[in-house]
């Protein structure tokens, strides 16, 4: 499905952020990546859809090495990878409907997109998805009129509009309150299960990761130091991932 092979990334030569990361993600289920700030979680996620250029290594996705693609081939591959962002990254001045249809831009010519000529199926699916994420009736609202939780729902719906084979989420709950965070994680889980696509999610909140993820990957210093189920993640393992002990009290 998705396999990272010896993936490395250095923004500055000589100081690698990712070091020889090897990771395989199965055909379904939620995988949470945890680790302290600055350990390369975001970089790892962004390397997969090449928002960040990996320095070396391979990203095998459906028998294709994404690291070698460029131009139209890369754009075609990106269509199959939906992404949810920490700060939602909606286009604030567009309506909720326009933001959702952004998810179809990889399938529609720029000229048709400019004239808002999306197919009736796309528009129908957008309305269905608004129902799924609990925002029916919001189609014509401008994105900047929504609350944080509502925006993230739009962000998830936009990613699902792509009909992705893989869903990436970069700290999707870090800007939200605890209650909304749980709701957003529930939504991500539901969406992943009902469409049977794997979800790879970066998280700060260890408890939330334990609660929702079938598999937890711990990162430290640009390397994977833990890979297992939530039950295996005891204090010793957490100390290994985050360092120190005082914060566990």
């Amino acid at each position, binding site marked *: 499905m998705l396999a990272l092979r010896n993936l490395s990334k250095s923004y500055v030569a000589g100081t690698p952020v990712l070091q020889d990361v090897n990771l395989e993600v199965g055909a379904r289920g939620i995988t949470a990546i945890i680790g302290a700030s600055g350990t390369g979680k975001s970089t790892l996620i962004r390397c997969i*859809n090449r*928002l960040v250029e990996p320095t070396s290594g391979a990203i095998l996705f459906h028998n294709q090495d994404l690291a070698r693609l460029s131009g139209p081939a890369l*754009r*075609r*591959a*990106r*269509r*199959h*990878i*939906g*992404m949810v*962002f920490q*700060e939602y*990254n*909606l*286009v*604030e*001045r*567009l309506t909720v409907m*326009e933001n959702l249809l*952004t*998810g*179809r*831009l*990889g*399938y*529609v*010519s*720029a000229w048709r*997109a*400019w004239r808002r000529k999306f197919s009736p199926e796309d528009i129908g699916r957008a309305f269905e998805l608004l129902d799924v994420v609990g925002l029916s009736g919001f189609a014509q609202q401008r994105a*900047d009129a929504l609350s944080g939780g509502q925006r993230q729902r739009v*962000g998830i719906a*936009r990613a699902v509009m*792509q009909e992705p084979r893989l869903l990436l989420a970069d700290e999707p709950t870090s800007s939200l309150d605890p209650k909304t965070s749980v709701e957003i994680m529930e939504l991500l889980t539901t969406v992943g299960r009902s469409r049977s696509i794997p979800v790879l999610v970066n998280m700060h909140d260890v408890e939330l990761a334990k609660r929702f993820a079938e598999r937890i990957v711990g990162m430290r210093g640009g390397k994977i130091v833990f890979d297992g189920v939530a039950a295996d993640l005891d204090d010793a393992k957490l100390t290994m991932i985050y360092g120190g002990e005082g914060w566990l009290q």
Partner: protein
Amino acid sequence: MTDRAAASSLTPADPFRRDVWPRLAAIALVAYVIYACSRLDVSWERVEAGLANASHFFARLFPPNFERRDLLVKGLLESLEIAVLASTLGIVLSLPIGLCAARNLMPAWVTWPARAIIVMARSFHPVIVAIVFVKAVGFGALAGVLALTVASIGFIGKLFTEAIEEISLKPVEAVRSTGASFLSVLTYGVLPQVFSRFIGFATYQLDSNLRNSTMVGIVGAGGIGGTLFAAFQRFDYDFVCAILIAIITLIMVGEVLATAVRAIFIENATLIDLVRGGGKMRRVRHAEDD
């Protein structure tokens, strides 16, 4: 605490940072102003004599003489045509040029030529550019249109570039991640963020082109400026007054129109809102737009 205070030479008695350079700069400025006045023979006697001349001139302005209405209307219409044509051309051309000059979206080999065009377009006052175009394409409105088009490219292009360079790249990243083509990234990720500001620049430029179109005529580039200049030279001050009143009217009408366009595009007002003055209500809601 005392160590830090000593290090930055601040004492309790004098807690403000005293810097000698701003004071020196102020003294230098005053000295230069005095020097320039002496060089340019600026004196109070001359200002006094000038005021007397001015009052004589103002007395002859009134009453305004609207007898040569045909000439006046023809000149005004030509000015209006110059302004609208130059603004349209300028807006259409400055969009791609401004986009190409944005360093956050384009590689250096694209931004440098685009920036060079904008800098050149901004280097000279429209009147100087008009003189060049009068030499190139002859007397008449075409020279005026071309001159003001250049000015529009310089102004809108520069501000549009700056607006694009200030956008948030987060939505752009999100749109890219969907596999959208570069053009779709522009139309969905970039343009929505700068559209209202672009409308603002464009209407301001139309306003400014209206004013400048009344002036390029002085150097023979068409419009009412030529008529105004001729009237001045023939001491037809009452006709000058009529022309000035006509220009003021034109500018005011232009400003009302520009405000309406801004209200419709930026505040999503309808024509009915504008008549009722309801646009202000929406302005509060989208206050962050400007």
